[in-house]
């Protein structure tokens, strides 16, 4: 398979008018929810999922992917103008971006953020192309044994790189696995923990769980915090950055892209971790360290490039191995399965049009984002004038409709209600819900592969360390745990994530 053939196929798919339309819808919705604090891509994707059933899977996936990377663009607008991160991934953009806005340089800050994102998006698309083929070739050699080890590694790594307490995250993964066990056991036909509820027979739907944990619980927690929102009322002008600005920002953009691309591929990476890392590194290598925190343009370019690159490369493990790198990718896996596509190594050879179409659409989408974000920034800013007192009831309503729509089931709404309450408890005790979602989505695969591996080996657990690829994967997992246990790393990680 050659790279150009793949890319050509992808581009041909992505520029079909219908796919262009869905890409545009996706990035517009993504930008909107990115701009608005209090609603993130996870509930949005969950909400729209049921309504993509009627679409061709490629179009559906292009739309959902657009929401994710579109949100990264939108988040920076709010960060720069309001000093409130529209998304968690744009927390660091607040530092220098908002400072620039206060100095009357909101225009260049927005422009550099958008250009950095576009630049990173372009490079990340190429990275996906280059890495996908060899990775999926490797993955085709996998049997149930390797697959089980890979799932274990994926879950562990997602935990290590996630925010918050590692032990709590591990416990959350286990809770997710337990939820994933609910339903009729495929090999024996026995009902497990269904309590006679017919809707639970096919297993628990992850959409109500995601909406409850991420959408509603977040609202309940937000309502307890004092409201903060003050839009910078200056006119946004000078949207074309000066050559000097571009010159200063370019090396930072490149470093940010590199960091984002690498961290995005790692499980747990996604869009949240890269900008923190990129900002920290940029601060170290920059010639004018003193400017950081006081409106350094590099402090906008690097994290913005990193979050966009990370958002895109986090699709690599999903598209090649069928392993989600973060909670949003877990939703995407669910989306694939609902469209009848089994995620996994075979997806590249069986669905080339979907995989390459989505990859190419990311680049197309980034181009659209550049266009809709810069000249139309005024529209997005005016969206910030919607007060939270109207926003949160609307989000609650949309969560209800979306959850109902997934299977036209009222039971799912009650399930979401329960998850919202549990999610609120999780927020109170400081446990991140993302690992739970990963466990829920991967749980059935984990059990199935373990069962198959045990059948192959006649119940001998040693098989996992006897086969080289599997042993290697488990060794990496063990190493991760060991590294984590060491006190120095523990402290460093805390610092890095606390920033």
């Amino acid at each position, binding site marked *: 398979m050659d790279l150009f053939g793949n890319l050509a196929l992808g581009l041909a798919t992505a520029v079909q008018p219908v796919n262009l339309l869905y890409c545009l819808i996706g990035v517009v919705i993504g930008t909107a929810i990115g701009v608005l604090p209090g609603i993130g891509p996870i509930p949005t994707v969950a909400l729209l999922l049921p309504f993509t059933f009627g679409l061709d899977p490629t179009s559906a996936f292009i739309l959902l992917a657009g929401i994710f990377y579109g949100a990264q663009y939108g988040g920076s607008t709010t960060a720069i103008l309001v000093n409130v991160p529209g998304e968690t991934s744009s927390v660091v953009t607040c530092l220098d971006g908002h400072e620039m806005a206060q100095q009357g340089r909101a225009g260049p800050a927005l422009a550099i953020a958008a250009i950095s994102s576009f630049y990173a998006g372009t490079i990340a698309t190429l990275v996906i192309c280059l890495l996908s083929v060899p990775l999926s070739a490797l993955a085709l050699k996998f049997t149930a044994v390797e697959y089980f080890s890979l799932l274990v590694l994926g879950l562990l790594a997602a935990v290590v790189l996630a925010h918050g307490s590692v032990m709590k995250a591990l416990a959350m993964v286990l809770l997710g696995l337990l939820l994933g066990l609910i339903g009729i056991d495929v090999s024996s036909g026995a009902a497990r923990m269904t309590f006679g509820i017919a809707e639970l027979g096919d297993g628990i739907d992850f959409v109500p769980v995601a909406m409850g944990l991420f959408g509603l619980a977040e*609202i309940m927690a937000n309502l307890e915090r004092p409201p903060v929102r003050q839009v910078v009322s200056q006119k946004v002008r000078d949207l074309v950055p000066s050559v000097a600005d571009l010159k200063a920002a370019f090396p930072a953009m490149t470093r940010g892209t590199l960091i984002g691309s690498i961290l995005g591929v790692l499980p747990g990476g996604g869009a949240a971790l890269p900008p923190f890392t990129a900002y920290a590194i940029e601060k170290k290598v920059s010639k004018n360290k003193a400017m950081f925190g006081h409106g350094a343009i590099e402090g906008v370019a690097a994290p913005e490039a990193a979050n966009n690159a990370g958002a895109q490369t986090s699709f690599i493990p999903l598209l090649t191995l069928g392993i989600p790198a973060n909670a949003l990718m877990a939703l995407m896996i669910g989306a694939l399965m609902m469209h009848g596509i089994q995620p996994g190594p075979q997806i590249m050879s069986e669905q080339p049009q979907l995989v390459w179409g989505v990859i190419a659409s990311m680049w197309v989408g980034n181009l659209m984002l550049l266009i809709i974000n810069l000249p139309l920034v005024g529209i997005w800013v005016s969206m910030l004038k919607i007060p939270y007192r109207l926003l949160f009831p609307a989000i609650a*309503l949309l969560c209800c409709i979306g959850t109902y729509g997934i299977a036209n089931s009222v039971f799912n709404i009650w399930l979401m209600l329960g998850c919202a309450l549990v999610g609120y408890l999780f927020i109170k005790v400081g446990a991140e819900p993302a690992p739970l979602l990963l466990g829920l989505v991967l749980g059935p695969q984990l059990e199935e592969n373990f069962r198959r591996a045990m059948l192959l080996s006649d119940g001998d657990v040693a098989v996992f360390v006897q086969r080289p690829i599997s042993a290697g994967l488990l060794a990496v997992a063990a190493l991760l745990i060991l590294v984590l246990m060491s006190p120095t790393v523990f402290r460093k990680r805390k610092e890095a994530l606390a920033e």
Partner: protein
Amino acid sequence: MAERRRGDLRDLLFGGFLIAVAGFTAAATWSLRVGTAANMGPGYMPRVVAALVLAFGLFFVIRGAVAAFHPIAPPQPRGVVFILAAVAAFALLVTTAGLMIAAVATIVIAGFASRETRPLETVLFGGAMAVGAVLLFVQALKLPVPIWPW
């Protein structure tokens, strides 16, 4: 307040929750055949995962008990109660009274969750959202749900 209290309430609460979940799972799956590793029954994985959850629960309870005192931000029932009530109202109304009424009810009840809510504005907004939801989800996206009770 001179008395030195111990216990990280966050860990204690989370640990207690995990233990409860593990116990519940064990009780619910007790009758399922466990089998052996080579020939796993449907009860095998639930038993293993529940045991791990229990272990984590005990870990958090012990860690929380020996740690220095750390409170939980006191919950404010207003937000929780009204958001949950809004969702419950939607669940009860959507198939019986139709999307229009369910949507207005959800928005209005949710509105009570915040002190900043203005009654008239919320009712009008609820009406507008209901019409928008019907147009978008029922008319355009063909969600099979009644619009009105009749």
